[in-house]
């Protein structure tokens, strides 16, 4: 079954599989009062649809009254009621945003029902804290103590957004007071100052939806939506990427009155306190130019523009866009991946200047990695080619290095590389642990019931090995570990560790319940691939295969030379040259752009013979195509009745005729005839066919 056939049949299956909910059921539900519709998030809050209005009511009253006043208000002069409510339902939801984001659900007795992290930093803060049923003041103190311990609140001035979701403003004020009191207590113990920005909102679908969409707290979402409402030129989606401190700075630059955003009491001098918290950075930025900060989108555009290469820009996938404060100035740190390279830029958030020194230099790392400083700023690192350098021992190194290798990658970068390699987001992984060892950086985390460990080269982030351990692995049955298995495999292969490239190690149990460890690697020259299945109990080899990857084949350089000679294009005039090796198909592909056209030429891995050439004008209306070159080739060969292995070199060209019809031309030769097909790019129909004898008077074959 082909993939297409599989999809077609699956589509049929899904089409047959219909819900029992009818349209009439939906209409009936619509006619019911909204509160009777099942609520799917925050089930203890009955949300109603109403226009969201930023609440601008004074709240810092409780700061003056203090916690005691709050309790007096709540329980009266006679003190707390002796019996607390039995039902543990949520009465208020509180969002705390520093950079860590934490959401607390509180019951009517001011005790914690649930505590959720809304981002990874929040998860880190909550790690090890048992907040359930803790009184709110205690919980707040525990949270901020943890934030200080973990370095999230370390500056002289700190800015915190506290959002209380409660329709009752008096009750919301009381909660704000408790929280502010708890924060002040912890901060004063550590001689830190803090500005708490209070905000009260009612639970509202649009806010929740926006928060969920961008993985932020409801409180931060409310603040952002309010900002965007005040200043229509701001894109709410773009603001979601900023920390609260950065948001406050933007609000200041945009002249958005803070009183319109948060609970505000002029006498409390909240605005001044916020300015104080941001004093160095914002004041400097403001006095320097007095202009707004760039939006993240603008920063992205600048980074891509700095490439001077549309092809790379079109394929860019951003993995980091972060506003950070460096040397008293706001700077965007941007990272994106395109065509096998990781690009890194630092751009001044005020004037858009690239932070990296100009000029283009290239350095080759000891392991062969090429790291380039790009003209116009930024750096480029090859992330696709596996490393050629490896560790020299099979004993798990245990020496922990306390600091990053100079010029190497940071722990944060290592984490993002590991997650990127698995193709998942940080929030999808749990228990992320980065450990810097002598020979590699280890990034471990759980994802989908398995433990993943990525060992990365500290100098450039390239993968040294990946270890995969399913959660249900019966570890008690193992007498060897992955290092033993690796050593056994290498000994069997007759290789030293430094002769071996990237390794993959997987734990598993076979049908006979025998625990095993699979070890896969290639040799350093990429000539052979090795696979060993090692018995986890006794270290014996259960299965082994090794296969030549490039039997007497041509090198990448040779492939490039063949292609550029054939196309009669000077290599130095081509852009984005990349060579891919496809060992199973015994071929190499050389792709590049030249004069607004993409070339992709496939060369036989042994003989160097050109097997297929694909030409794609870069300005072609690609969105109109519903078929690709492979399908066009399939259609043409099927029409001609020629198996692919019987035809000589194939040439495939994308194009459009004068009527704007997009097509793909397929040209090939077999048995003394040349075939030309023009295939409709949208529906795959054959538009034109020409068959001509090659140098002889043969009868044309019938189609």
């Amino acid at each position: 079954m082909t993939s297409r056939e599989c999809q077609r049949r699956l589509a049929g299956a899904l089409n047959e599989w219909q819900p029992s909910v009818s349209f009439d059921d939906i209409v009936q539900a619509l006619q019911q009062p909204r509160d009777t519709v099942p609520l799917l998030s925050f089930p203890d809050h009955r949300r109603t649809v109403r226009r969201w209005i930023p609440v601008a009511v004074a709240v810092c009253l409780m700061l003056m009254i203090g916690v005691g006043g709050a309790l007096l208000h709540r329980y009266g002069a006679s003190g707390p009621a002796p019996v607390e409510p039995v039902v543990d339902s949520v009465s208020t939801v509180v969002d705390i945003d520093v950079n860590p984001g934490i959401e607390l659900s509180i019951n009517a007795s001011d005790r914690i029902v649930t505590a959720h992290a809304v981002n990874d930093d929040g998860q880190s803060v909550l790690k090890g804290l048992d907040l359930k049923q803790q009184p709110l003041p205690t919980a707040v103190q525990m949270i901020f103590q943890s934030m200080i311990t973990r370095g999230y609140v370390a500056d002289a001035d700190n800015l915190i957004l506290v959002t209380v979701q409660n329709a009752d403003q008096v009750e919301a004020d009381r909660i704000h007071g408790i929280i502010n009191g708890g924060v002040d207590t912890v901060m004063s113990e550590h001689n830190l100052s803090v500005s708490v920005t209070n905000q009260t909102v009612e639970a509202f679908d649009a806010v929740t939806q926006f928060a969920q969409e961008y993985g932020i707290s409801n409180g931060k979402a409310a603040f952002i939506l309010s900002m965007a409402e005040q200043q229509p030129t701001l894109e709410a989606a773009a603001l979601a990427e900023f920390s609260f401190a950065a948001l406050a700075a933007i609000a200041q630059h945009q002249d958005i009155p803070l009183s319109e955003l948060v609970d505000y009491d002029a006498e409390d001098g909240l605005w001044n306190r916020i300015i104080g918290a941001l004093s160095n950075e914002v004041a400097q930025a403001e006095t320097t130019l007095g202009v707004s900060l760039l939006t993240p989108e603008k920063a992205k555009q600048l980074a891509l523009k700095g490439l001077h290469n549309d092809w790379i820009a079109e394929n860019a996938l951003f993995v980091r866009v972060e506003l950070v404060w460096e040397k008293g100035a706001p700077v965007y740190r941007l990272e994106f991946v395109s065509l096998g390279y990781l690009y890194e830029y630092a751009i001044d958030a005020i004037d858009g200047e690239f932070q990296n020194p100009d000029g283009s230099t290239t350095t080759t790392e000891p392991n062969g990695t090429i790291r380039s400083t790009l003209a116009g700023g930024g750096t480029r690192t090859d992330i696709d080619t596996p490393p050629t350098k490896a560790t020299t021992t099979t004993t798990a190194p245990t020496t922990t290095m306390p600091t990053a290798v100079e010029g190497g990658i940071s722990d944060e970068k290592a984490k993002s590389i590991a997650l990127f390699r698995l193709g998942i987001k940080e929030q999808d992984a749990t228990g992320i642990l980065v450990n810097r060892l002598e020979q590699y950086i280890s990034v471990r985390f759980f994802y989908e019931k398995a433990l993943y460990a990525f060992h990365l080269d500290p100098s450039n982030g390239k993968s040294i090995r990946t270890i995969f351990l399913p959660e249900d692995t019966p570890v008690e049955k193992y007498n060897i570990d992955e290092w033993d298995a690796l050593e056994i495999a290498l000994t069997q292969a007759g290789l030293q560790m430094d002769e071996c490239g990237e390794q993959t190690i997987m734990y598993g149990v076979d049908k006979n319940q025998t625990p095993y460890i699979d070890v896969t690697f290639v040799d350093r020259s990429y000539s052979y691939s090795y696979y060993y299945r090692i018995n986890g109990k006794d270290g014996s080899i259960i299965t082994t295969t090794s296969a030549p990857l490039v039997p007497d084949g041509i090198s990448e350089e040779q492939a490039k030379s063949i292609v550029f000679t054939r196309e009669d294009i000077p290599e130095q005039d081509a852009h984005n040259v990349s060579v891919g090796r496809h060992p199973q198909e015994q071929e190499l592909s050389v792709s590049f752009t030249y004069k607004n056209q993409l070339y992709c030429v496939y060369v036989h891995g042994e003989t160097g013979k050109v097997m297929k050439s694909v030409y794609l004008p870069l300005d072609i209306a690609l969105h109109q195509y519903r078929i690709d070159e492979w399908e066009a080739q399939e259609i043409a060969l099927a029409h001609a009745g020629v198996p692919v292995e019987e035809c000589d070199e194939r040439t495939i060209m994308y194009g459009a005729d004068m009527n704007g019809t997009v097509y793909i031309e397929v040209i090939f030769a077999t048995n003394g005839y040349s075939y030309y097909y023009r295939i409709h790019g949208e529906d795959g129909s054959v538009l034109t066919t020409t068959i001509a004898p090659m140098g002889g008077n043969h009868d044309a074959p019938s189609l």
Partner: protein
Amino acid sequence: MPSVPVNEVKGASNMWMLLQIVSDPTPVKRPVDEGWIGRIAEGDMDAFRMLYDAVSGSVYAFAYSLVRNRHDAEDVLQETFLRIHAYAAAYRPQGKPLAWIFTIARHLAQDKRRERTRIQPLEVFPSDDIRQIEHAEHRILLHALLNGLSEEDRQIVVLHTAVGMKHREIAEVMNLPLNTVLSRHHRALKRLKAIAKEENV
């Protein structure tokens, strides 16, 4: 000359990546007129019905792929359409009605699943839920889809196969890099084909 399996060579070339972006073959096309959403905002129930007819099946399949429970999937389906109705006026036409609809459905399904896992752990999906499927081959494929793939792979396959979304749109809805969506879809199809082969489909 060695055999060059047409479908197998695709995997590693940048060219293929580019072309996949623009030429995803969509086995099922369910055209959704973006104008319907504006009409829904104006109270046009005919437009609401047309939208329901066009995408309810795929919203249900998508929700089921996340919650793996018929009752919850139907709840998500219903709530999705109630929200579409409620927020149609706030929808800004950007040529991506499907992305909007399935982002709503995804969030609701995730909420439902969180709610469910607080009560009881998610288990293997109940086979009864697909007993209604008459064709044995379809049942096998659905079983493979629901039990043989990871959660994200399931979502990608359903969005591509049942909804007819392009990989680029799926990447947007799922907030994943495009390359991840492409490689996961490729891998998921391989897995489904392998299961289908084992089951002699």
